[in-house]
Structures are given as structure tokens and as C-alpha cells.
């Protein structure tokens, strides 16, 4: 391969790995104290109830130990005192790309966001470090009464809807990182879809970390009112830094009676990012919530999207793909809490471990004794590329009572040297052969993705495999 091709490859492989120097007007400084919180609240001009709420969350965060009794010890390498918790330009999110500051606009253009917006999205929010710099929704969608704004605008402009649900799906003290997010959150989306409104095209958020030694703590709240439907997609990137970066989001979904929410994530974090995210939904009667989650990149990801099946005949689904390359640990899974009769849940998880990469699946399915007619199906499959790769599965399934059914299947497979030789003999390079095998392994899941995202995912897998063979 010529030098020229190699250079092109480098640019392509690390599409998110670039950085324009951006001066932020507001910087909460390094480290986290109660003063940091007052700074954030003052800059954002937030109400007193939220100031109090944040301070309380910080106390909970400080009091809670790291969950290293079950999770990776690598968590201990996060130095909270070295992180910057709020970096923003101070401007309100623009409704036009014209008004977005040049360096930020250039960043999102390079990531292809404005182009995707024109092609197939109903609305876009683009977050740069702590705050959204762009937020817009197609006129026709807005006219249907759909609200799609940043979390700060949401809590200020729609307090009656926001406060009713904020922190109700995931309480502050759910875990150490939900407490951290509650203390310092900024950015993220607030979405409300009125009864019966079916949003035809997806709404998309793009989360971009640009600054070093920085923590991004977006907070997303989506409420789909009775009989409504919405699909939300998020993408994430960050450039490579020498030091660790922290991304710790909280995402709460509320699907009221008969509503449908699909939440799609394709994250491609650089290998220095600790990605510790809490995602949960409440599904009311006959509502459906589906999480589609693709975890590529990061140093350590811990994420277990969940659905609390609160109303009769509610349905929850988690479809996840995790790809753990050298030096990465994808610790992912799903939680299904059945809390009403005739609720059904489905978990399909596929993980791929490459080199010394490690994939862990943790699943929690809970069906209490007094319920009837509940069903869960769990499938988790792991693919190991090398003998040094590692995969672990920790399913925790409690199904009590009669008339509830649960099915669990798990498999581990490895791409054999004979398979690779067979494909190479047909003319594919080793990397192409691996990539094709991996794509084959996740193929049945990728088909459930929106087309644009399945193309993106295939591309990301190709690039990961290119980088993983000598």
C-alpha cells in the first residue's frame, strides 16, 4: 500500500479525530465542588429549585462509592478533580447554521450533520462540549405541536411538562453517575410529542466533545404522549487526547398509553473516553419502547438501557451491538422490569471482541410473582476474533409466578483461521474477510436500523477491522 493511501485511510478511520481550537467564554474550571454548581446555575440562569436539586445530587454523588465491587476497576482511574465540568460559548442555540460560530460550524460540517439534516431528518440538535449550538426542527413538525429543544430551554420554557417527568424515570441516586449527571448536567434534548402525533422522520442529536480534560453530561428527556410515535437518533464523537475524557449522560423516556418511542444510538468515541451512561424508559399501557444501541470505541463503556413496563401489554425491546477493540471494554446489556400483566420484553445483544478487547453482557429481567401473562426473550451472542479476546455474560433473570415465560439463549463463536483463509482465497484481504464475517454476525440486527445508520455502522465496522489486522 502506498503512503498516499495510508494517509487517506488515517483520515477516514478517525473521522471524528480532529479538533479546531475553540475559546469558551464560560468555563467552570477544573474540579468539582458546590461552587462549580453555583457557577453553572448562574451562567445558565436556572431557577432556585434546580440549584437546590443539583446541590443535593452532588452530595449523593460524593457519598456514593464507585461500583467496583461488580464493575471494572478501571473506574478508579477517573480523576474527578482533573475534569472540567462546564464549557460553553454563552450563546443560545441557533436555529440556523449561519449563526453558529465558525469553528463549531466547521466541526459539524466535517461530521456531515447539516447534510444529513437536509436529507432525512425532521430535526437536529448539535451539542458542542457543554451546550447545544444548533437546534432546529422542520416547520411542519413544529406546527404539529412537537417540541424539540435543549434541556435548559425545555425546563425554562415548558416547566409544567418538564418538571412532571424530570428525574422520575431515573432518580438522582440510581447510581453514582446518574447523581453526577444530575449535579452538573447541561445540554441534551427535551422532546414532547403531543397525543396522536406520529413524527415521520427521525429527530437527531449529535454530541461532540472538543475540549481536553472535559466531561460531557447531557440530559435528555423524551415524552411521547398517548398514541404518538417518535424516533430519536444520537451520534457521538470526540478527538483523541492523551488524557481521559468523561461522558456521562442520563436519558429518560416516557411512553404514555399506546405511544411508541425508538431510540437509536451509534456512538464512535475515541479510545480515551469513559462512557458511563444511564438510560431508562417507562412504558405505560400498550406502549412500546425500543432501544437500538451500537457501542463502538471508548475506553470503558457501561450502559444498560432499560424499560420499566408499567402498564398492561406494554412492550420493551433492547437491540444492542458492541464492538470491543484492543484496549477497550464494552460493558453493556439491558434491564427489563415487568410491572404489569401481559407485558413483553425482548433483548438481543451481540458483541464482538477484537485483539485484547473485552465485551461484557449484563442483563437484568425481573418479573414479580403476582403478574400474569408476561414474556421475556433474551438472546446474547458473542463473537471472538482472536484467542486473546474476552467475553463474559452475566444474565440475572428472575421470573416468578405461574403463567409467565422466559427464554434465554447465549452463544460464543470465533472466526476460524480456516474461514479467513477461505475468504482470502476468493480475493478478499484479511481485513475485508474479518469485516465481512463481523457484518454477517450482526447482519440480522443491522437490518432493523434506519438505513442511513446501518450504512454508517457497516462503515465503522470496516474501519475498526482495517485497524485491527497487521
Amino acid at each position, binding site marked *: 500500500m502506498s503512503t498516499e493511501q495510508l494517509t487517506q485511510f488515517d483520515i477516514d478511520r478517525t473521522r471524528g479525530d480532529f479538533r479546531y481550537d475553540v475559546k469558551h467564554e464560560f468555563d467552570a474550571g477544573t474540579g468539582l465542588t458546590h461552587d462549580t454548581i453555583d457557577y453553572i446555575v448562574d451562567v445558565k440562569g436556572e431557577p432556585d429549585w434546580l440549584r437546590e436539586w443539583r446541590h443535593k445530587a452532588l452530595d449523593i454523588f460524593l457519598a456514593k462509592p464507585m461500583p467496583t465491587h461488580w464493575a471494572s476497576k478501571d473506574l478508579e482511574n477517573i480523576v474527578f478533580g482533573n475534569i472540567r465540568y462546564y464549557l460553553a460559548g454563552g450563546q443560545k442555540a441557533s436555529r440556523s447554521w449561519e449563526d453558529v460560530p465558525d469553528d463549531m460550524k466547521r466541526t459539524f460540517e466535517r461530521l456531515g450533520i447539516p447534510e444529513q439534516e437536509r436529507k432525512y431528518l425532521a430535526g437536529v440538535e448539535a451539542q458542542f462540549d457543554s451546550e447545544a449550538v444548533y437546534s432546529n426542527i422542520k416547520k411542519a413538525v413544529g406546527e404539529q405541536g412537537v417540541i424539540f429543544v435543549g434541556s435548559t430551554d425545555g425546563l425554562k420554557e415548558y416547566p409544567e411538562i418538564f418538571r412532571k417527568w424530570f428525574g422520575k424515570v431515573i432518580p438522582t441516586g440510581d447510581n453514582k453517575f446518574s447523581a453526577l449527571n444530575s449535579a452538573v448536567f447541561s445540554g441534551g434534548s427535551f422532546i414532547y410529542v403531543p397525543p396522536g402525533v406520529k413524527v415521520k422522520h427521525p429527530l437527531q442529536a449529535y454530541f461532540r466533545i472538543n475540549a481536553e480534560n472535559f466531561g460531557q453530561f447531557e440530559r435528555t428527556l423524551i415524552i411521547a404522549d398517548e398514541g404518538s410515535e417518535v424516533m430519536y437518533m444520537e451520534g457521538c464523537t470526540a478527538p483523541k487526547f492523551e488524557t481521559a475524557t468523561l461522558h456521562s449522560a442520563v436519558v429518560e423516556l416516557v411512553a404514555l398509553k399506546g405511544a411508541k418511542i425508538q431510540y437509536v444510538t451509534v456512538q464512535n468515541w475515541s479510545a480515551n473516553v469513559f462512557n458511563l451512561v444511564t438510560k431508562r424508559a417507562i412504558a405505560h399501557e400498550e406502549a412500546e419502547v425500543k432501544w437500538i444501541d451500537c457501542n463502538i470505541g471508548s475506553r470503558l463503556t457501561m450502559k444498560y438501557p432499560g424499560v420499566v413496563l408499567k402498564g398492561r401489554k406494554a412492550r420493551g425491546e433492547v437491540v444492542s451491538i458492541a464492538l470491543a477493540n484492543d484496549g477497550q471494554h464494552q460493558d453493556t446489556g439491558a434491564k427489563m422490569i415487568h410491572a404489569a400483566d401481559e407485558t413483553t420484553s425482548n433483548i438481543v445483544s451481540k458483541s464482538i471482541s477484537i485483539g485484547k478487547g473485552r465485551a461484557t453482557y449484563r442483563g437484568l429481567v425481573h418479573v414479580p410473582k403476582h403478574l400474569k401473562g408476561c414474556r421475556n426473550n433474551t438472546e446474547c451472542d458473542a463473537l471472538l476474533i482472536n484467542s486473546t479476546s474476552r467475553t463474559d455474560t452475566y444474565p440475572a433473570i428472575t421470573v416468578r409466578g405461574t403463567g409467565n415465560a422466559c427464554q434465554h439463549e447465549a452463544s460464543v463463536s470465533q472466526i476460524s483461521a480456516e*474461514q479467513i483463509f477461505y475468504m482470502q*482465497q*476468493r480475493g478478499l484481504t484479511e481485513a475485508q474477510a474479518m469485516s465481512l464475517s463481523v457484518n454477517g454476525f450482526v447482519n440480522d440486527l443491522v437490518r432493523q436500523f434506519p438505513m442511513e445508520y446501518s450504512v454508517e455502522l457497516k462503515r465503522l465496522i470496516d474501519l475498526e477491522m482495517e485497524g485491527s489486522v497487521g
Partner: protein
Amino acid sequence: MNSLSIQNLHVRIGEKEIIRGLTLDIPKGEVHAVMGPNGSGKSTLSKAIGGHPDYTVTEGDVVLDGESILGLEPDERARKGLFLAFQYPMEIPGVSNANFLRAALNARQPDGEEIEATDFYAKLYEEMDELDIRREFTARAVNEGFSGGEKKRNEILQMAILRPKYAILDETDSGLDIDALKVVSAGVNAQRGPATGMLVITHYQRLLEYIVPDVVHVMVGGRIVRTGPKELALELEEKGYDFIKDELAEPVPA
């Protein structure tokens, strides 16, 4: 120049030498058969030519149209025009036959170019019809859940689509009933021609009734011990491999 030339080849698996000084020249336009008893190194020969990493060439050369291919990766050898029809074709779960073949064809295009989908399917369906393969085959995963006969037919289909300069057919007759054998042989014969050289490796003479070779080689103990016209195959069938072993001046370890 226009041949696949195997010159004094020595091949080891681990510490064990399996091929021990084998020389063979397959000119374009000819079909050569290599026959031999079990354990004579027939399958090792095809894997070593293909570049399988478990097989170490310690001496000799393999030259394709004047160029040594021993230093090349298996995929580079394939793109130079070498094709192996496997005795045991691998399954590739989740990857459809159509996608696999398209990927293989695209790997042969200049950088950044891809073959047109319509051209591809037209060609694919034409060749599938020749081999009596049904349309739904394209959406099935490569060799997954295929019968022995289907796997072998798939190998010949891949060969027809990829149009190699040199094809090595490793025990293509194994596991085939007589009807499947006829279809597969017809597929191979359709690809005979001045642009293609073939090496047919087999234990039995039966296959050579359908794919009639120009030259027959007998392989024993990792070497070619006899070369002759197609009638040599019949003689072997009649007398067994022992008569050749007996004729050899020095005893050959099994």
C-alpha cells in the same frame, strides 16, 4: 510463461514434511489430474499453493505466469488468478452468497470502483442456471446448512463467476452422488478453454470419466512418481496404487 509451475516444492506442517520435492507444470488450456492414495499429500499441495498460513514452504517455488507467488498473501494469489475449489468449503454465517461473490469481485476492481449490481446479477443468474441452482440461493448464507452437493456446486459457481486463470479442484467428487457429480463436472467442463489451466485432485478415477484430463500424475509420499496420458487413471483403478509403490526403486513411507 503461460503456466502454473510448481518447482521442487517442499512443504511442512509443523515439523513434518508432507510435500517432498514435487514438480508439476500446468499450462493454460490443459487439465491435469493428480491422483494418489490417502496421505500422499494431495490436499496439502492445494493449501500450500493457496498460501494457507499453517503450511510452510521450505524449498522450491510456485510460479504463476512467470511470477513467483510464494511471497504473496493468499488474497493476492487469488487476485493473480488462482482459485481453489475446497474439499470442505467453509460456512460464513450471516453473509449471503450474493454479497460474498460481489465482495470477491469488487476486490478485483481498481481502487474505489465497484461492479454494477445489474450486471452482477445477470451474470450470477446465468451461471446459476448452468449449475441448476435455484434463485433463493443468492440470499442464503455462504454454505450454511448446505448439503455436500450444494457446497460443491457453490464452489464451481464461484469459480465460474471469478474466472480464474488456474483452478485447483481438491477432491471435488467427495460426497457427491452420481447426479450431483454430473452437474458439477458439466460446470467444470464449461469452464475449460485456452485461457484456463486446471489441476484436478482426486482419489478415484470416477471423476475423470466426467472431467477427462489431458495429463494424469500419480502422487505418492509427497512426490509425483508417474506421469502419463489419461489412460493411466484407468490402469490405477484396475491395479490399485500398490503397483506403483511396488515399482518404485526406493520404498516410500505412507
